[in-house]
């Protein structure tokens, strides 16, 4: 991979936007106004789709952290979506409805699995790593299928969304939308701080030239592992949101094609760019939506489009827009 540390020594802006800043600001503004549009036009579907998009974008942001900045291509990232969702669902079924308990457990469970997977998988590189993360995601997928008590293959309906003692009613769609929106922006901000910190420089350096990093004294394995865990935890949060959004959990959340979708979203938006994951997720979901309205066989077009993107469009959309996206 020809990844490189970000450049420019002069007054590095704190929040580095790689697609042109104007585009990102417009995007944020549009997203902020979606609920208003939904209310005025009476189109509830837009709100639902947008909420889903925000949640998946958070997952993509977490994947971009390890993939775009860290060079760790995980083909099992949907596992953390699933674990986060299942934490919420299982606790809800067992009578623990408080979000203040469910969500931390979701994040912790996802972080724990990331720790396990990372500790084993990060000993490998390149294509081995891709395959191993895939295998570990499959493992958790099968575990979920085997959980008869929690719906097994059919999944489990969550009747009550996470409760926040009256001060947050997640059933309010607009409120939930803005919650997801805020968490997404917080996630992006977190990543932006992370990548410029000492920790971030180590991660990015290790992506660029791991051998060199070790030669100057960095024990890169432990830093990558911590990065992997952070990404898993963040994705676990997204999973908790997803479970609430759909009121449903099922093994399909962690099917490997979901992991593939996440990779597509990140690459489409531009690897290693801050707002890339958001752009990529939006594009991907809109594309899926548009295609399914046009034809009964949307993947006949989507498939080749992905192939074309992989073959020709290295920097993703952020790159096409003229931003400095790395591929």
């Amino acid at each position, binding site marked *: 991979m020809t990844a490189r540390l*970000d*450049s420019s*020594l002069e007054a590095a802006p704190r929040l580095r936007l790689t697609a042109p800043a104007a585009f990102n600001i417009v995007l944020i503004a549009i997203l902020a106004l979606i609920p208003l549009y939904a209310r005025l036009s009476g189109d509830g579907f837009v709100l639902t789709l947008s909420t889903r998009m925000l949640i998946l974008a958070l997952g993509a942001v977490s994947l971009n952290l390890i993939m775009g900045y860290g060079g760790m291509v995980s083909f099992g990232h949907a596992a953390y979506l699933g674990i986060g969702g299942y934490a919420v669902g299982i606790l809800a079924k067992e009578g623990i409805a408080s979000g203040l308990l469910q969500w931390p457990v979701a994040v912790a469970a996802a972080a724990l699995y990331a720790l396990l997977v990372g500790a084993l998988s990060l000993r490998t590189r390149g294509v081995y790593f891709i395959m191993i993360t895939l295998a570990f995601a499959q493992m958790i997928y099968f575990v979920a299928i085997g959980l008869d008590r929690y719906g097994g293959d059919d999944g489990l309906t969550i009747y009550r969304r996470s409760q926040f003692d009256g001060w947050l009613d997640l059933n309010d769609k607009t409120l939930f939308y803005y919650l997801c929106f805020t968490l997404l922006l917080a996630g992006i901000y977190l990543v932006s701080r992370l990548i*410029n*910190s*000492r920790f971030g420089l180590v991660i990015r350096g290790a992506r660029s030239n791991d051998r060199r*990093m070790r*030669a*100057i*004294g960095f024990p890169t394995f432990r830093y990558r592992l911590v990065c992997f865990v952070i990404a898993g935890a963040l994705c676990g949060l997204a999973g908790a949101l997803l479970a609430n959004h759909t009121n449903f959990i099922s093994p399909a959340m962690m099917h490997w094609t979901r992991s593939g979708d996440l990779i597509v979203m990140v690459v489409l938006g531009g690897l290693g760019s801050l707002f890339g994951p958001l752009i990529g997720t939006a594009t991907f979901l809109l594309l899926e939506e548009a295609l399914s309205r046009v034809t009964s066989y949307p993947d006949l077009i989507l498939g080749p489009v992905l192939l074309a993107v992989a073959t020709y469009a290295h920097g993703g959309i952020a790159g096409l827009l003229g931003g400095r996206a790395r591929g």
Partner: protein
Amino acid sequence: MAEPLLEIDELTRRFGGVIAADAITLAIPAGELHAVIGPNGAGKTTLIGLLTGEITPEAGAVRFDGSDITRLAVDRRNRLGLARSFQITSLFLDVTALDNVALAVQAHRGHSFRFWGDARREDELRDPAQAALDRVGLGPRAAMRVDRLSHGEHRQLEIAMALATQPRLLLLDEPMAGMGPEESARMVALLRELKGSTTILLIEHDMEAVFALADRITVLVYGRVIASGEPAAIRADPAVREAYLGEGEAGGADGRRKGAP
């Protein structure tokens, strides 16, 4: 007599049927500039790999300042004080020279589990980095992107990075590779200046530099040490002449030796 800083004891390593390192034994006292020379394929690269920890030996040991580091990981060795420069440029090209060296400084300034703050603004990292660059003569070029530096400047930067890790032993892998006469002379001057304060193990092809700088020289052929001693003795050693210097290797087809007195 003080214990040697670096002790290499019967180090052996095979690759398939080839013996790349054949019971190499060597002792380097602190403060010495020790050169290792040998024709291509002599096993110099393997030796470096064994010393840095990228390759594990089948037999033998490496001791650094008394402790056995034979199976120690690469990064641990560096933190103990063993730094290396790379022969093939292994720098972060898209950022500045200062950024590169600052990273090396960062590796030795506490841990890097700091998730906040802008590491590129930390004077604690950038000041020592600038100092290292000044020392090798790259001070004015600190803010330059590495992919815009010349080849010779890359080699200087490699040394700056190694220096920034505050080493006790510098393992230099052909620092003069690909340099013209002017750049080489500058590098020799730099190494001469470093000689007093740091122990140096120099792997080189450039005979002029080697004989100008080395306190002692070891000659490696097919993974074996065939001679080790002071430059004058090495130059006079018949086995060395035959195996290496006598082939006209460094001088060209007419057999003239580069760096002849």
